[in-house]
């Protein structure tokens, strides 16, 4: 039974000596849209852009149209995909962003054709569950709730509170917080430390030491590595891994270095409305390969839904894997929403990995109390 169809068409016309005109159309069972882009051939800069909706998801989708103008001035270069996804995709609409990127691909192909034919033909040629019905368990006993006030009145026996999952810019291009902003936010929030887990990026230990000295604050180095089975937070691996690595290969490397691996947000987006119809249960999900190749599961993450966090906790409990929490902050105000409380003193990455390996930690809902972003209540 055919459940969904989508068609996209793009075409490129050489409007004048130095202007290419691109038209893109996307039609599927929900959306219908068109886009017209004029760009300067000599530098591939967008001169004008216009979009229209033919069919849309809701009556506020037209609000996306004015934001398309943000793309005027963009050049088709190696950074443009990220800019379009980040700015047009978020401010306007990701379907328009995807269609714009299709148009850019068509332009690139058209230019190849232009270059190939220019010598022989001259320049005048035409050339695009319903809101997560699958429930996780209601069990939340491994998850602690700590208020900022609790933290201010704490004693040394209360352990060390660390946000284990934080992204800084420019190390993580998707983040909008500088490392300095991250550290300042962490200090203000009452955390005892942060672990920088930028995507496939290894911080230089000297830079981190300088930051530790400057702020007098615990800053740790981690890494969020993309594997064929999903994102993994890795601690204790001094290797800069680029591209996609298989989980098996990463596991071998980390075990060799006696490091530690945490499955990051393992169900992000997986319990989106509708997909709940699949009837995925924590028991079935526990069979996934990813959980055989990690030491712990992140069950508190501020960028996933409450149900997804709960579901991850259900899987962790089912498998008997230790559970962690981290904000996955991409903005300063997100730092410390969730954290992990360690029972041992932590001064550096070696202490961190040792404490993780001894399982002397638990996930904590910290500042999420304030934001109503309480994943486990």
């Amino acid at each position, binding site marked *: 039974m055919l459940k969904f169809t989508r068609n996209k068409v793009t075409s490129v016309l050489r409007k004048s000596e130095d202007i290419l005109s691109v038209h893109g159309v996307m039609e599927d069972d929900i959306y219908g849209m068109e886009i017209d882009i004029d760009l300067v051939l000599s530098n591939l800069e967008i001169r004008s852009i216009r979009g229209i909706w033919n069919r849309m998801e809701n009556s506020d989708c037209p609000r996306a149209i004015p934001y398309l103008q943000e793309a005027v001035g963009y050049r088709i270069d190696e950074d443009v995909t990220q800019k379009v996804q980040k700015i047009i995709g978020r401010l306007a609409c990701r379907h328009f962003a995807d269609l714009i990127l299709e148009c850019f691909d068509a332009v690139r192909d058209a230019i190849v054709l232009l270059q190939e034919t220019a010598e022989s033909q001259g320049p005048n040629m035409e050339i695009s569950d319903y809101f997560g019905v699958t429930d996780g368990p209601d069990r939340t006993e491994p998850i602690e709730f700590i208020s900022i006030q609790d933290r201010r009145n704490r004693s040394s026996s209360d352990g060390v509170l660390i946000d284990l999952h934080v992204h800084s810019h420019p190390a993580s291009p998707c983040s909008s917080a500088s490392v300095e902003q991250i550290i300042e936010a962490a200090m203000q929030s009452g955390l005892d430390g942060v672990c920088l887990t930028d995507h496939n990026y290894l911080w230089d230990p000297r830079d981190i030491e300088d930051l530790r000295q400057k702020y007098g604050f615990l800053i740790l180095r981690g890494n969020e590595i993309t594997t064929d089975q999903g994102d993994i937070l890795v601690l204790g691996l001094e290797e800069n891994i680029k591209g996609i690595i298989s989980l098996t290969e990463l596991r071998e490397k980390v075990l060799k270095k006696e490091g530690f691996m945490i499955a990051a947000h393992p169900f992000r987006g997986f319990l989106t409305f509708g997909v709940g119809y699949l009837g995925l249960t924590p028991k079935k999900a526990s069979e996934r390969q990813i959980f055989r190749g990690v030491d712990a599961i992140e069950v508190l993450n501020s960028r996933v*839904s409450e149900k997804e966090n709960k579901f991850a906790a259900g899987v962790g409990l089912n498998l008997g894997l230790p559970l962690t929490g981290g904000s996955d902050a991409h903005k300063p105000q997100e730092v410390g929403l969730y954290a992990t409380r360690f029972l041992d003193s932590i001064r550096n990455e070696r202490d961190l990995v040792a404490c993780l390996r001894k399982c002397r930690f638990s996930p904590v809902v910290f500042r999420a109390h304030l934001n109503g972003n309480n994943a486990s209540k």
Partner: protein
Amino acid sequence: MEAWVQILVKSPNLEITQAEGQVRRFRQDDRLDLSWDLQNVIGTRVGPGIKKIIRGLLDDNPFAGPVSILLDECCNGVIMSFTKDILVAAPKDREGEKEFFASMVRANPRLLNSCAALSEDSPLMDALELNK
């Protein structure tokens, strides 16, 4: 260029269990079977981040760009086939629509500010009562 890919996805984990494809036409070159390279994506799951994973797994293929786009569309199609019925059935009256999309965002908070319609200042999000 003319190409196709086809994937088989197993529920409930949405794991890709089969993948095949072919570049039918690319300038003057003969047909190229992609099925061998596509074996790399078997075992991955359709879900967030799949685009990046696919791109990385196909990196050595000369057609990595267009084939990734085709695979990404296949994955989108899988997700949309689940969400389509619900989105199409959204209430058409203004108040019903607001409550519907507010409920959707409450259940999936990352959708807030994910686009113009679901931004904090969008009238569609009035029912979220963000300031309360």
